[in-house]
């Protein structure tokens, strides 16, 4: 078995791992914004599916992938807004309303797909862009600096989100609202407005996560193509203790194991396919079990805010 891990294979695993991490990063960072402000949106997977569909459909019809991406962002934003109305203004139980949003997104994306397309079609997605100089480094250049823009974007999002959450007044407000909304309210922070912003932003990023599948990584749309990736992304937020850097670590660990699994299949290592597919889900449960650090969890997570309620 030792001859399986040749240099090209290891490089291949790194390359696929970075690509696979992309949708998880967008979705999980978006969810981290929402959760840090005290709202958990379980509808991420449904938003991703709608993002994947609208990105693909608009990209295909207009022949311009950027319009597709914009459509995915818009649809994601709207669905995030819907979640905000339900969970912030109407104060619905977030676990259940998120599942409602998921079912809505899953149903609507299948419905639109069946109504507008005759079958699974593929599209030519975003092309890789080689970064000058860095892209010419032997071996690593190909693996690290020759991706499409959505992949770079996902990795740039991590420091950006970290900066926003921990170095700006807005980030401080988000975390204050998530930790102690009553105190934030007495300081004059509009709790509901902050939560509307974070949940909508999270929705928009989930829309991009979906589009990253359909117009930059897999380049096709099919029903339920996320197969639960949105839920894994939520688990990554827990795993990463609600910090963007932690999420990055989790997403990389996850996608490298997944990439390894895919490569082992390609190389014909004898391992039942169904168990290989099972791996990320089993890993998620394991990751949740060993990483639960209650202290890091925003205190007001999942609790609707009501003025004057102590």
């Amino acid at each position, binding site marked *: 078995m030792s001859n399986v891990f040749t240099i090209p294979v290891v490089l291949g695993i790194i390359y696929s791992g970075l690509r696979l991490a992309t949708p998880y990063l967008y979705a999980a960072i978006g969810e981290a914004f929402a959760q840090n402000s005290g709202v958990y949106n*379980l509808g991420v997977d*449904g938003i991703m599916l709608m993002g994947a569909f609208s990105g693909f459909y608009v990209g295909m019809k207009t022949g311009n992938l950027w319009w597709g991406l914009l459509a995915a962002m818009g649809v994601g934003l709207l669905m995030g807004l*819907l979640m905000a109305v*339900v969970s912030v203004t*109407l*104060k*619905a*139980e977030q*676990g*259940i*309303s*998120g*599942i*409602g*949003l*998921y*079912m*809505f*997104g*899953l*149903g*609507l994306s*299948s*419905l639109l797909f*069946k*109504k507008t397309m005759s079958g699974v079609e593929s599209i030519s997605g975003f092309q890789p862009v080689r970064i000058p100089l860095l892209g010419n480094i032997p071996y690593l250049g190909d693996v690290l600096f020759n991706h499409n823009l959505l992949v770079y974007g996902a990795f740039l999002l991590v420091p950006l989100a970290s900066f926003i959450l921990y170095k700006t007044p807005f980030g401080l407000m988000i975390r204050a609202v998530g930790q102690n909304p009553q105190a934030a309210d007495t300081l004059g922070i509009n709790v509901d407005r902050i939560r509307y912003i974070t949940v909508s932003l999270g929705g928009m990023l989930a829309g991009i996560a979906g589009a990253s599948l359909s117009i930059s990584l897999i380049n096709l749309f099919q*029903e339920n193509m996320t*197969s*639960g990736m949105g*839920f*894994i992304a*939520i*688990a990554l937020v*827990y795993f990463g203790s609600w910090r963007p850097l932690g999420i990055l670590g989790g997403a990389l660990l996850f996608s490298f194991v997944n990439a390894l699994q895919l490569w082992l299949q390609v190389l014909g290592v004898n391992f*039942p396919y*169904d*168990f290989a*597919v*099972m791996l990320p*889900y*089993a890993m*998620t*449960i394991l990751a*949740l*079990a060993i990483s*639960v650090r*209650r202290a890091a969890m925003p205190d007001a997570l999942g609790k609707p805010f009501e003025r004057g309620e102590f």
Partner: protein
Amino acid sequence: MPQRSEIKRMLNQVFEAILPILAVPVALIIGALILLLLRANPGVAFTALVQGAVGSTFSVTQTLVKATPLLLVGLGITIAFRGGVINIGGEGQIIVGALSATALALSFSQWPGAILLPLCLLVGTLSGALWGAVPGVLKARLGVNEILSTIMMNAIALQLSNYLLRGPMIDPAEIEAGTRIAQSALLPRQAWLPRLVPQTLLHAGSILALVMAVLVYIFLWRTTIGYRIRAVGLNAQAARYAGIPVPVYQALAITLGGAFAGLAGAVEVMGVQRRMLEGLSGGYGFSGIVAALFGNLHPLGTIPASVLFGGLLVGADKMQRAVQVPSAFVDTLMGLIVLFVVSSRIWAVRRARRRETYE
């Protein structure tokens, strides 16, 4: 005056019961808008839907056939949600229940029906319970979010089923014929649930589900364990002060939830399909949630709710043929209904709060 407060209490119960029903017209209006966007006539579509659900004797029985797993899953969801745990693992629990009932029936196909049939139901129930107990114990012991773990358990069960139905459990006839459809062999005849109406699929499992609904009602409202589960769900902190071991009862609630979904899987195999096949869970794990919420998380309310959504599922097929709107339309509608039902609770809560202030 005890009588007046009694009447008030009843009126409030009525109000709470009809609130979810108000969500239907709203969902229907949005559904009609979606249909218009898809260039389908909403009137024709909804007429086809209703006709498909209750237009003939056969369609009525089909509605009841679909309502049966919805009711069983919904009962499990009711117990879990009442205990304050959100069980999204219905799909996986149905699958393992169906798989194990099938495996047992095929392994002991010589046993008499009087033993084999109840044993299959029991084993299906127990494996569903086991599939629910894993997230339950993880939540109780390590605080693992049960929504996420139950969803992961769904995916694991699905892969397990794919593996078994294409490998060890595949019908030998499928290998012989070379078609290799992923399904098990036909169950021995004595493990079939009896059919109630000739020429239809309506089976004894529907009666079993009704009996279970009454039993769950008695369990939740007339036994100490049921009372404690509800207490934990209503106010975990107060329950803790009252000396109830909250994590134990949360784990129990989700395990019982799994048991009912497992039973639903066994019943679906033994009553309808008579073999295990891919896609048997049919989304009941999710639509069961809708039925339970719609039934106001009350076992008896879940009965009409599951008939309603069973009809919706059956009618969707007819609608698909009549106006070429894919049946995924109904899934979309169900998602909207969940959103509306949970959102509408704010009015019940506000009313309750006003009452407290004025009295």
